[in-house]
């Protein structure tokens, strides 16, 4: 009985929610059809973003072929994929990672150095984009903490062992004294 009275209310609520949803009338296809980044040299001329004034002049020489592939792989291994959890853009198949690899390739082929390219990504996304945080400021905690923990842990173990040895000796002395007393009396 109770269920029967609740049902129309529930249906009305669902209907109201469906009507309130922005895509309720005719939902567009929600399947992401992601346009992959165009291959090198396929960008429409004159369109895009100005990066030159932010990067300055290229400090290296333009790379190509295997050398370019190696340099792209090196840069990509150091950059975090913004859409993934702890994956580099080298290891990720996400469209963002592909776009960033394409951007790195484009910049390296123009003569920007590895440091300039990594610095460019860091300028845009912040230090979070670096898989290995720079050893400075608060980051030093991350670098020093493992060594510190091992050191403190080792120290505690040594102290504990010494303490145990000392208390062990004391225990033996007491026992021997007791045996001596009992045998002499």
């Amino acid at each position, binding site marked *: 009985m109770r269920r029967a009275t609740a049902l129309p209310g529930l249906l009305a609520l669902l209907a109201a929610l469906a009507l309130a949803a922005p895509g309720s009338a005719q939902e567009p296809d929600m399947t992401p059809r992601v346009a992959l980044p165009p291959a090198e040299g396929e960008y429409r001329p*004159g369109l895009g973003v100005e990066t030159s004034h932010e990067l300055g002049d290229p400090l290296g020489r333009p790379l190509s072929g295997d050398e370019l592939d190696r340099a792209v792989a090196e840069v990509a291994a150091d950059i975090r994929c913004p859409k993934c959890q702890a994956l580099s853009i080298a290891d990720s198949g996400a469209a963002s990672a592909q776009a960033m690899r394409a951007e790195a390739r484009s910049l390296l082929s123009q003569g920007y150095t590895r440091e300039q390219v990594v610095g460019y990504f860091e300028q845009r996304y*912040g230090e979070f984009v670096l898989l290995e945080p720079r050893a400075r400021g608060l980051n030093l905690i991350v670098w020093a903490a493992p060594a510190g923990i091992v050191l403190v842990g080792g120290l505690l173990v040594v102290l504990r062992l010494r303490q145990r040895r000392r208390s062990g000796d004391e225990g033996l002395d007491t026992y021997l004294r007791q045996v001596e007393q009992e045998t002499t009396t």
Partner: protein
Amino acid sequence: MNRKVLLVGLGISLPLLVLLGFGFRHDPQIVESPLVGKPAPNFRLADLDGNIVDLAELRGRPVIVNFWATYCVPCWAEHPLLLEGSRRWQGEIHFLGVIFQDDPDLIAQFTAEYGRWGPSLIDEGGRVAIAYGVYGPPETFFIGRDGVIVDKAIGAVAPEQLLSVANRMLAQSAAATG
């Protein structure tokens, strides 16, 4: 002995608790943008009708740049707010959408059905998204009349933030022109 253990325990656990407390105060999904307070990267992109939009040419008026996609649910949620904002500040603030890894046909279909708050620009290769350090849609950049990024919203932009930042940008405009 017990006091020593307590002290060592506190010495180890207290800094960890402080660190955790500090960490819990921040949403791990939100990464502060290093671009706020810096000049917005200039871009020149085509919209769905082939018209070219050059950000540099819009200087002198505040610009709101929103990276969005049809597969992104928060983008749907903020759509009515951006529509309302674009109507409210028509002629005062430019609203620009940059398509984030989505099919332009789906964007056209969506805007035809639910309204259009500004041109949707095609970002070939996602280079503009990289230049703006976009992690994922929606992200909104508020650019002052001098071309400097005033603020950034991650996720669906909140009405309070839109209102306060828009008013701040307009006040800057008025102060600079008046």
